[in-house]
């Protein structure tokens, strides 16, 4: 089925400075193309008709994965999801991120989609967001005025809306090196395994105490059940520093259920999503704790 986009004026800046000035000049009317697997679909399917499209993929120096042992991981905003999925260092040291990346769309989509694009598109179901928030990632935002760093948790404002201001571009994702004995899991739940947008997704990332008996620094992040990726803070607190047990896991699941505030849409009803939050949070905790369902 032919779905023709409306014509637009196309820019291909070769430096960030050029990109900033174009953003400033065409305030609000320019859409950034950084892969196109969301933008072009919106233009074909949902009638989005920007006057200007700026392809940032030709700006050099924004496609990289830099890892410094015991310090941090830095990912350039134009790194493709496929590169992240297949990166050895991300698979070994930040496996929960590689896992999430491998679940986004298809290989064809992952070869085009970029991590910056996935985050700036700000879908409540954004595949890479829950894992990255759980890993305490920060984003570096650049503009003509300079740079600022924002925790990813504070980056999302609503569906499709971020804290990016006029003339700003997301340049880098910074993921701190996790503490030893940190475990993480990302569970995506949809009707089918491939080519699916999450109905509910859950990332749980936690660190075992020195004695190895309790979880500390617990991060529970829910996707697709609120206007933005959501930290289930009450659930996190309850799991914190307590000896793991089935009743405790039940309680954590119940709290996450209460914190989720999803909508009903074509993918699932709000009630069903809430129920699945409970199921998936419990499952995630059991899995990182090496427990089978009793």
């Amino acid at each position, binding site marked *: *089925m032919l779905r023709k986009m*409306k014509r637009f004026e196309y820019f291909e800046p070769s430096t960030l400075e050029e990109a900033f000035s174009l953003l400033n000049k065409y305030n609000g009317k320019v859409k950034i193309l950084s892969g196109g*697997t969301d933008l072009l679909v919106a233009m074909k399917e949902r009638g989005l008709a920007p006057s200007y499209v700026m392809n940032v993929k030709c700006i050099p120096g924004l496609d990289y994965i830099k890892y410094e042992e015991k310090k941090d991981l830095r990912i350039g905003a134009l790194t493709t999801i496929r590169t992240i999925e297949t990166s050895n260092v991300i698979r070994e040291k930040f496996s929960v991120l590689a896992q999430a990346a491998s679940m986004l769309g298809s*290989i*064809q989509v992952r070869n085009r989609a970029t991590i910056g694009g996935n985050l700036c598109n700000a879908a409540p179901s954004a595949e890479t967001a829950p894992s990255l928030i759980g890993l305490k990632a920060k984003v570096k935002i650049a503009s003509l005025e300079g740079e600022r760093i924002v925790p990813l948790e504070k980056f999302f404002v609503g569906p499709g809306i971020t804290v990016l201001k006029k003339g700003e571009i997301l340049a880098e994702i910074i993921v701190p090196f996790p503490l030893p004995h940190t475990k993480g899991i990302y569970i995506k739940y949809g009707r089918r395994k491939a080519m699916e947008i999450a109905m509910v997704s859950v990332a749980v990332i936690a660190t075992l105490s020195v004695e190895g008996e309790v979880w500390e620094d617990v991060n529970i992040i829910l996707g697709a059940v609120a206007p933005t990726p959501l930290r289930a803070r009450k659930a996190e607190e309850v799991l914190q520093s307590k000896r793991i047990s089935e009743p405790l896991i039940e309680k954590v699941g119940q709290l996450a259920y209460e914190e989720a505030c999803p909508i009903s849409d074509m993918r699932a009803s709000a009630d069903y999503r809430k129920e699945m939050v409970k199921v998936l949070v419990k499952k995630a905790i059991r899995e990182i704790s090496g427990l089978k369902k009793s």
Partner: protein
Amino acid sequence: MIQKRIQLKVNGEEYKLEVKSNDTLLDVIRDRLSLTGTKRGCDTGDCGACTVLLEGKPVNSCLVLAIEADGKEVITIEGLTKEGKLDLVQEAFIEQGAIQCGFCTPGMVLSAKALLDENRNPTESEIKTAIAGNLCRCTGYVKIVKAISSAAEKMRKIRKS
């Protein structure tokens, strides 16, 4: 700019074309170069019928602007046949009966080709992941997976001998 002159290398041949900003790579391949082996299915990146190899990697050509592909190398299904001889993957699809209506086949073959270029010994699960973005509405997946694994086997044999 609304229009731009671009240069594309498609199946080894250089093309110079004037394209509009809203033309996709798929539009150009089918309507300008008349390479209609690449199919237009959903036109929104879900079905994989328009899969081509861009710089060696499988992409949905319906989600790539033609302008973005300027200076790049594209392989379509027509480019797999060398001097009238089908590629091993194409042969395997025929031998295994992995084609029904044929609409998904070009995309399936190119996704498989990209997999086997990187991995000569894929597991069944790796094959399924590789073609997860290619829908077959005849649901002939079992034979498609079989064809890909048989093509892999043939490639390994050729390499050994």
